[in-house]
């Protein structure tokens, strides 16, 4: 991960060096895109979870539900506590919170994710610009060679 940043103007680099950097940058762009997508999916999950909370209202207390024992086996149950949910906070830890607390949690995590996505999007943009500059320089060098 520790790479030396070249502060050499890219025009001064040989075609081979340019191709090298281009390959590396393309790999980085690929990785960043994958990360961005993963963050996006995580944000979606939190949004879905927050929506799911809307099912639990004081009116739904006592309603019948189907409780999954496996992915294809359910048993009938009754909604008892419609004021609290137990949610996963990571590392196999779960916390019981009132509905409002759970909503706050999802909001908090979503905001964090958005911050991270913005950061990555910025870095991605920078790398994309580098890629474009590299391609332009390479094209110029190739056509200069042909003359």
């Amino acid at each position, binding site marked *: 991960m520790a790479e030396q940043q070249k502060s050499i103007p890219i025009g001064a680099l040989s075609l081979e060096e340019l191709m090298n950097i281009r390959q590396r940058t393309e790999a980085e762009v690929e990785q960043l895109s994958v990360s961005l997508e993963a963050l996006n999916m995580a944000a979606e999950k939190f949004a879905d979870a927050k929506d799911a909370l809307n099912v639990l209202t004081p009116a739904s207390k006592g309603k019948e539900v189907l409780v999954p024992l496996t992915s294809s086996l359910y048993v009938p149950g009754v909604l008892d506590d419609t004021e609290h949910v137990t949610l996963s*906070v*990571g*590392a196999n830890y*779960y916390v019981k919170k009132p509905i409002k607390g759970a909503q706050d949690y999802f909001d908090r995590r979503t905001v964090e994710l958005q911050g991270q996505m913005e950061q990555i999007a910025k870095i991605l943009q920078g790398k994309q610009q580098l890629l474009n500059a590299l391609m332009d320089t390479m094209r110029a060098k190739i056509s200069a060679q042909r003359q």
Partner: protein
Amino acid sequence: DARRAQASMQQQLEAESNVFRRYQKQIEQCQEARQRLYTQRTENELVAKELSLLEGDAEVFKMVGPLLVRQDSEEARGNVTKRLEYITAEIKRTEDQMKEAEENANKQKEKLMAMMQAARGGQVPRQ
């Protein structure tokens, strides 16, 4: 005998190259381990933050196999803190290992280059 000397030099070169590859592999393994540890650290930091935001009477559970087991929130906080300390120590240890492997690899690379130079030097034909 020039040919025998050359063959043995080839063997030596190959042996030293293998040593170099071994160091490179070590570096790679350290990088992978460190990446895993970084992920664990981030996850546990998140948990620590959530646990610190809890109100006094909030219920905390730990998933042990298929069971959710009730834990005292103070105890949970303590456990997560301890885990974070362990992970941080492991990261340091892995980084030290990686530095050592990198130093070994660099020394080995220089050794190999010197050997290749010497091999080339012995091949200059006499005019």
